[in-house]
C-alpha cells in the first residue's frame, strides 16, 4: 500500500517540477503539487496507522516526513501562479529528497522501532517542521538573490520572466523563519529533556542543530535586510543540510 502511494506522490511532484519550467503549464504544476501532496499525505497516514510507535524513526523515514513538511509549507506560503519560479526552486528539491528517502528505505513497512516516548515524538516532529520551514526560507532567499542580481544587471527579460518582488521575498523569508525558529526551540527543548533523562552527551548532530538555532536566532535578533539577510538564511540552511543529510545517520543509529 505504502509502495503504491509513493509513485503517485513522486509523479505529482515530478510533474510539478517539470511543469513549473513553462508559464503555460503553471496550472498543471499546481495540480501536480496538490495531488502529489495528497498522495504523500495518504502514504504517511498509512505508515502511521501501520506502526506501533513513531513510524519515521529512521533517517530516511524522517526525510520522507521532512519532504512532506516542505511541500506543505510551500503549499501554504508560496504556491501561487505568479510565483512560478519559486515552485521551480522548491519542487525539484522536494523530488530529489523524496527519491533519496525512498532509496534509504522510507517507503518500506514501518517497524515498531523506538520513538515510543512522547517527548521524542515531539522532538522529532518539531525539529523536522522547523527544518522544513528553514528549507522554504532558504529557497525564498535564493530566489531573492537571483531577483536582486537580475535587477542589478538590468536583465531585459525581467518583466517577462517574473519573480516575486524583492520586498515580498524578504518579508516571506523573515516570516518563515519567525515561525520555524520557535518550532526548533520546542523540538530542541524536548530533545534536551530526553537527553538529560537518558544521561547522554551531545552528539555532532545535536551540536550542529544548536548552532543552526543560533544562526536563525541571530537572524531574527539582528534583523538584517537585503543581500545580508538572504546570505544569513542560506548559511543557516547549509547547517540544516549538514544536520539532515550528513549527520542524521549517526544520530538515528
Amino acid at each position, binding site marked *: 500500500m505504502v509502495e503504491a502511494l509513493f509513485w503517485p506522490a513522486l509523479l505529482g511532484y515530478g510533474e510539478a517540477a517539470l511543469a513549473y519550467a513553462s*508559464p*503555460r503549464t503553471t496550472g498543471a504544476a499546481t495540480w501536480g503539487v496538490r495531488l502529489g501532496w495528497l498522495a504523500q499525505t495518504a502514504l504517511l497516514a498509512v505508515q502511521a496507522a501501520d506502526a506501533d510507535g513513531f513510524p519515521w524513526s529512521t533517517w530516511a523515514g524522517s526525510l520522507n516526513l521532512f519532504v512532506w513538511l516542505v511541500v506543505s509549507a510551500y503549499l501554504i506560503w508560496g504556491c501561487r501562479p505568479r510565483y512560478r519560479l519559486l515552485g521551480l526552486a522548491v519542487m525539484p528539491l522536494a523530488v530529489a529528497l523524496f527519491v533519496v528517502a525512498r532509496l534509504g528505505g522510507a517507503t518500506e513497512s514501518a517497524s515498531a522501532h523506538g520513538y515510543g516516548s512522547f517527548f521524542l515524538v515531539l522532538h522529532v516532529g518539531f525539529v523536522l517542521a522547523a527544518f522544513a520551514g528553514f528549507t522554504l526560507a532558504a529557497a525564498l532567499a535564493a530566489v531573492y538573490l537571483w*531577483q536582486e542580481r537580475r*535587477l*542589478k544587471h*538590468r536583465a*531585459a*527579460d*525581467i*518583466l*517577462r520572466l*517574473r*519573480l*516575486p*518582488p*524583492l*520586498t*515580498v521575498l524578504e518579508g516571506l523569508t523573515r516570516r518563515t523563519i519567525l515561525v520555524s525558529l520557535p518550532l526548533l526551540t520546542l523540538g530542541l527543548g524536548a530533545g534536551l529533556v530526553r537527553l538529560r533523562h537518558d544521561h547522554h552527551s551531545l552528539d555532532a548532530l545535536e551540536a550542529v542543530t544548536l548552532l543552526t538555532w543560533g544562526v536563525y536566532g541571530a537572524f531574527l535578533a539582528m534583523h538584517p*535586510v*537585503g*543581500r545580508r539577510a538572504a546570505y544569513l538564511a542560506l548559511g543557516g540552511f547549509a547547517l540544516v543540510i549538514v544536520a539532515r543529510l550528513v549527520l542524521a545517520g549517526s544520530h538515528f543509529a
Partner: protein
Amino acid sequence: MTLALVGLSHHVAPVELRERVTLALGPAADLARSLGDAVCLSTCNRTELYLAGIDPARAAGAIEALAGEPLEGVLYELHEDAAAVHLFRVAAGLDSLVPGEGEILGQVRDAYEAVAPGPVLDRLFRQALGVGKRVRTETAIGESPASVSSAAAALAAQVFGDLHGRRVLLVGAGRIGELAAANLASRGAEIAFVANRTVESARELAHRFGGRAIGLDELGAQLGEVDVVVSSTSAPEPLLHPGDVPARRRAPLFFIDIAVPRDLDPAIAELGGCFLYDIDDLEAVVAETLAGRRAEAERAEQLVAEEAERFRAWRASLDVVPAIASLRARAEEIRSAELAKVDGRVSDDERRTLESVTAQILNKLLHLPTVRMKEAAVSADGAMYADAVRHLFGLEEER
C-alpha cells in the same frame, strides 16, 4: 439574418480622418439606433458599425457623412463569420496598436451596453466580451508594459511589490517624467517631491500630484525620504552621484533615469540596495516584453478561432430551431388531443400516470431527431434537415 461590419481603423485611416468619424458613447449609440439593429464601436483608433439584417451601404453612408467625404478604399466591409472573428480579435486586443492592450475591452462593453441589440448582435457581443476576458486570463498578453513609463512603474513594483505608501521623488517637470510619475501614482505610489531648476514649474506639477516642490539643490537632502527617484531633466551633467545617496538605509532605493544625457551617475547602480535603470535599459525591457506579447498573441489567436467556431455553430443552429419548435409543438398537440379523448373515463390518478408516460414517450422519440438536426446544422446541412422534417411531419401548413 445577415451579419455585417462596416468601419475604418488605424490600419487604414490616418488620425486626421479618424478624428472626424470618432463619436462619443451617446452619439455612437444614437447612430446605431438610427440604422436599426446595430452597435457602433467608436474609439480613437476605430469607428465600426456591426449590423444585423441591415444593408451595409447605409452604414457606409453614415460614416461617410461623418467624414464629409467619400471613403472608398478606406472603409472595410466584412460579412458573417469574418465580421464575428474581427470583433473577437478587437475585444482581445489583437487588432490594437499595442497588441493586448486592455482598454478596448471596456470600450466594446460600453458600445454594447449603450444599445439594446437583437439576438444575433447580443450573442456576438456577449461572446466577444467573453473572448476578451479569456485571452487576458489564459494568456500573458496584457501583463507586460508597452511603454517606457509603464515599464518604469512595473520595474518599481518588481522591487517593492505593492507601491501603496512608497514615496517618489520626481526630478524635472518634463512630459516623460510626468508620465512615469503618473504610472507610479496609478499603482498607489505617492509623488512626494517634484524637483526642478525652476521651482515654479515644479510647483505646478507637484500641485497636480499632491506633492511638494523643491529646488535641485535640495535633491540630496530628500533622498533619504523616498523609495523611488524618477529623473528626466535636460541637465548636461549628472545631478546625483553615489556620494549623495544616504549610506545607512534599510529599504531599497530605485532610480529611473529617463534623461539624455543621463541625470544620474551610473556608479549609483553599484551601491548596495540601489537599482538604476536608464532609458536604454527601459527600452530594452519594453522591446523584450513586446516580443513576449507577440508570442502570446499567437495563443490568443487560437482562442479567437475556437470562439469563432462556437459562434458559427450557434448561428447555424438557429436555422433548425424553428423546425424543432414546430415538430415539438405538433407532437404536443397530438398528445393533448389523444389525452382529451379519455377524459371522464379514467380516474385522476390514472390521468396523471397517462400524462407522465406519454410525455416521456414523446421526449424519448424526439430527443434523437432534435440532436441530429442540431448536429446537421453545425455541419451546414441544417436547412436540408429542417425542410425534410417539415415535409415528413406536415409542418409546412403551419408556417
